[in-house]
C-alpha cells in the first residue's frame, strides 16, 4: 500500500515537473516568436519603405525631365552623400546591331562625388531625353539590410524615352545604392541615398519599326483569347489552390496544316479554339488569314491550352494534338483535304513520336508547365527538359531503351525558380544545344507577403504543411545540400541561359543580359535579323502587372 502511494507521489511529481517544463518551453517559444514577429515587422517595414522610395525616385525623374530641373532628383540624395572615386557617368556608343544602336553607360574619371555634384550629373542625363514614356525603379537584389536604418541594394532603373533626334530607346541601368534612414521619429522611415555606384547600364535605341505591329483584324484574324468560364477563380480557385490554370492559358501554334508552304495559325482557347489559314500572297508579301475553324471541322474545342501539329501517322499531313486542362486531350487526324477528324478515342496515348510525347508531358495539371526536346548529349536519342512551376527543372536523359532518367542535377540545370518555359538552341554555334529557361522573376514578392514567423508556425500546424512538405524539403536538401541562400538569389534572378559544355553538363552564363526579363512565359530562340546569331524572344506578362515583351 505504502509502496503504491510512494509511486503515485513520484508520478505526480514527474507530471508537475513535465508541466512546468512544457509551460516554460511554450513561454520561451512565445517570447522568441514575439521577438521574431517584431523583427519581421521591422524588416517588412524596411522593404515597404524601400519600394516607396524607389517609386518616388521614378516620380522625381519624370518631374525633373518635365521641368528641366534636376532638383527633384537631387533632393533624394543625403547631404552626407559621398561616393569616392565615382566618376561621371557618360554614355558611350557601343556599336550597331541589326536596326538598333547601342550605348553603354560608363564611369569616366575617378572624381569623388558629393551632393554638390549631383544636379549637374542629373542634368546631363536629362539632356539626352526629349520625353519620357515609362520609368521603373525596382529592387534588383537586397545586399545588406539593417532594418529601418540602412539598406544596400542593387537597383534596376528602366526608362523608356524618346531622344533629341526622335529615336526611341530603352535605358536599362543597374546601380548599387546605400540608403540611410534620416528620420529621427521612431517607426518612421525617410530614406536618402548616401552612396551610389554604377554596376552596368545600356541604352538601346532605334526607330521602333523593326517589327510592324499589324492589327490582327486587318489581316483576317478576328480572334480574341477567352479564359474558360469554368475556371472562374472566385468559384473554383480554393479547390485548385492556385489560379495558374485560369490565367495560364494562351498558347499559339504556327504550322502549315495544308502543306502549301505558308504557315497557318492555331489559337487554343478556353471557349472556342480557332484555326486561321494563311491565304496571303508570298510573292507580294501581302499577309492575309482566313478563319478555317468551321470548314476544317475544328469547331467547338474549349478548355484548351496548347495545340500542336505533328504528322503522327506519317501520311504527309500534320495532325493536331490539343492539350486541355480538366478535360480529355484531343487528337485530330488531318484528312489531307483541309479537314480534320476527331480520333481522340482511337489513338489512346501510346504514340511513338518525340513531339507528341512532349505534348503528353504538357499540362497534366500537376505543375508540369512545359517541355522542350533536344538531343543535348548527342547520343542520337532525343532527351526532354521540363520546366516546373515553383520548382526546379528536370532534364530527362533518354536512355535509348524507351526509358528516361532525370539528369538535371548532374547536368547542372536544376535552375530553381517558377519555371514557365524553356528552349534549346545552339547560340554559340559550337554544335551543341544550349538551354534557355524562362522563370517568373519578381523580387517585389519578398515584401508582398506579410507572413510573420508565428503566422507561419500557426499555418503549418493548422494545415500540416510541414508534414506534407517534409519529403520535399528532403528532396531539396538531397539536391542542393544546405546552400539555401544561393537558391534564394537564383529564384529572384529570373531567366537563365545555360551553355552546353559538351560532356553532358551545362554551365550557367552569368552576364548574358538575358535574365531579368520579367514574369516569363514563352521563350524562343530565333535569328530575327538574319545575322546568323540566334536571338531570344521572351514573352512576359502577369495578371495585373504592366507586362512587356523583352528580347
Amino acid at each position, binding site marked *: 500500500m505504502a509502496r503504491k502511494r510512494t509511486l503515485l507521489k513520484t508520478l505526480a511529481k514527474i507530471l508537475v515537473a513535465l508541466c512546468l517544463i512544457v509551460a516554460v518551453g511554450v513561454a520561451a517559444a512565445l517570447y522568441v516568436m514575439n521577438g521574431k514577429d517584431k523583427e519581421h515587422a521591422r524588416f517588412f517595414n524596411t522593404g515597404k519603405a524601400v519600394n516607396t522610395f524607389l517609386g518616388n525616385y521614378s516620380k522625381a525623374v519624370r518631374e525633373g525631365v518635365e521641368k528641366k530641373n534636376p532638383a527633384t532628383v537631387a533632393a533624394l540624395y543625403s547631404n552626407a552623400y559621398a561616393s569616392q572615386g565615382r566618376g561621371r557617368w557618360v554614355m558611350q556608343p557601343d556599336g550597331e*546591331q*541589326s*536596326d*538598333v544602336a547601342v550605348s553603354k553607360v560608363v564611369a569616366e574619371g575617378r572624381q569623388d562625388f558629393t551632393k554638390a555634384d549631383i544636379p549637374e550629373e542629373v542634368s546631363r542625363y536629362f539632356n539626352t531625353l526629349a520625353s519620357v514614356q515609362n520609368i521603373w525603379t525596382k529592387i534588383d537584389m537586397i545586399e545588406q539590410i539593417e532594418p529601418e536604418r540602412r539598406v544596400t541594394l542593387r537597383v534596376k532603373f528602366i526608362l523608356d524615352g524618346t531622344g533629341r533626334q526622335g*529615336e*526611341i*530607346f*530603352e535605358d*536599362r541601368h543597374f546601380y548599387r545604392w546605400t540608403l540611410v534612414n534620416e528620420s529621427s521619429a521612431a517607426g518612421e522611415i525617410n530614406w536618402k541615398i548616401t552612396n551610389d555606384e554604377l554596376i552596368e547600364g545600356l541604352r*538601346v535605341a*532605334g526607330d*521602333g*519599326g*523593326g*517589327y510592324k*505591329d499589324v*492589327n490582327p483584324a486587318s489581316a483576317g484574324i478576328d480572334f480574341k*483569347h477567352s*479564359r474558360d468560364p469554368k475556371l472562374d477563380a472566385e468559384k473554383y480557385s480554393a479547390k485548385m489552390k492556385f489560379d495558374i490554370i485560369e490565367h495560364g492559358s*494562351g*498558347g*499559339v*501554334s*504556327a504550322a*502549315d496544316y495544308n502543306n502549301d508552304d505558308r504557315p497557318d*495559325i492555331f489559337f487554343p482557347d478556353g471557349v472556342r479554339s480557332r484555326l486561321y489559314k494563311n491565304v496571303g500572297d508570298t510573292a507580294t*508579301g501581302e499577309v492575309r488569314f482566313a478563319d478555317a475553324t468551321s470548314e476544317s471541322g475544328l469547331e467547338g474545342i474549349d478548355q484548351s*491550352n496548347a495545340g500542336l*501539329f*505533328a*504528322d503522327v501517322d*506519317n*501520311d504527309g499531313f500534320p495532325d493536331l494534338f490539343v492539350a486541355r486542362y480538366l478535360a480529355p486531350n484531343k487528337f485530330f487526324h488531318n484528312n489531307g483535304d483541309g479537314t480534320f477528324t476527331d480520333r481522340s478515342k482511337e489513338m489512346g496515348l501510346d504514340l511513338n513520336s*518525340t*513531339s507528341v510525347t512532349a505534348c503528353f508531358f504538357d499540362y497534366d495539371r500537376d505543375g508540369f508547365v512545359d*517541355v*522542350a526536346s533536344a538531343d543535348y548529349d548527342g547520343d542520337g536519342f532525343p532527351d526532354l527538359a521540363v520546366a516546373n512551376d515553383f520548382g526546379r527543372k528536370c532534364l530527362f536523359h533518354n536512355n535509348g531503351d524507351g526509358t528516361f532518367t532525370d539528369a538535371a542535377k548532374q547536368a547542372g540545370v536544376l535552375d530553381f525558380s517558377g519555371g514557365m518555359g524553356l528552349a*534549346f538552341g545552339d*547560340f*554559340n*554555334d559550337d554544335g551543341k544545344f544550349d538551354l534557355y529557361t524562362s522563370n517568373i522573376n519578381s523580387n517585389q514578392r519578398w515584401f508582398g507577403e506579410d507572413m510573420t514567423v508565428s503566422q507561419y508556425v500557426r499555418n503549418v500546424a493548422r494545415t500540416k504543411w510541414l508534414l506534407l512538405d517534409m519529403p520535399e524539403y528532403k528532396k531539396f536538401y538531397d539536391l542542393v545540400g544546405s546552400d539555401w541562400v544561393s537558391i534564394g538569389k537564383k529564384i529572384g534572378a529570373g531567366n537563365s541561359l545555360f551553355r552546353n559544355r559538351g560532356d553532358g553538363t551545362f554551365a550557367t552564363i552569368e552576364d*548574358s*543580359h538575358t535574365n531579368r*526579363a520579367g514574369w516569363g*512565359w*514563352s*521563350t*524562343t530562340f530565333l*535569328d530575327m*535579323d*538574319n*545575322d*546568323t546569331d540566334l536571338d531570344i524572344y521572351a514573352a512576359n*506578362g*502577369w*495578371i495585373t502587372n504592366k*507586362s*512587356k*515583351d*523583352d528580347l
Partner: protein
Amino acid sequence: MDVARPTGSDCVKDSRGVGVADFDGDGRLDMVINNNNETPTLYLNNLRKSGNAVELKLVGTRSNRDAVGARVRLTASGKTMMRQVEAGSGYASEAMLPVHFGLGNAERIDAVEITWPSGIQQRFEGESLGAAFGVNRLIRIEEGTDTSRGVTVARSLRHSAAPASGDIASTSQTGGGSMH
C-alpha cells in the same frame, strides 16, 4: 540585351505563347503572340538591316515525316550553325516546322549536314550541293537521297532588306559574350 522597345516588339499585353514563322515569305521571321483574355499580337518582321536567309523543310521517309528531332548543320562564310526540327517549344507554342538559318552577308551555302531521327546522316557539300541549294529560298529536302535529287526549291524568299551589319565572322560569339 533587350531590344524590344527600339525594334517595336514591346507590346504591353499579358502575353503567353509565341509562334515564330515566316508568315509573309520574305525570309525574315515574324511572330504571333497569344495574349491572355486579349486580342493577339501579330508582329511582321520589318528590320531593315537583315541578312540573307534560307529555310529548309525536311521530309522524313524512314524517320517521322515531319522529321521532328532532325538536326541540321549549315555552313556559310566559314561559320557552321545548327538548328533542330521542333514540334512544340516555349510555353504552349509551336513554331513553323522548316528550320530557318540567317546567313548574314553570305551569298551561298557551303555545306549542309542533316542527322535524321532515323540515324541516317546526309552531307551536302561541293558537287552534291546541287543547284537547289541557294540563299533566300525555301528548300525541300527528302530523307535518304544521297544525290541532290531529293532536294527541290519550294519557293524563293522575297528578300528586300539590306544586309545585316557587320561581317559574319566578327559577329560570331562565344559563351560569355552578350546576346542580342
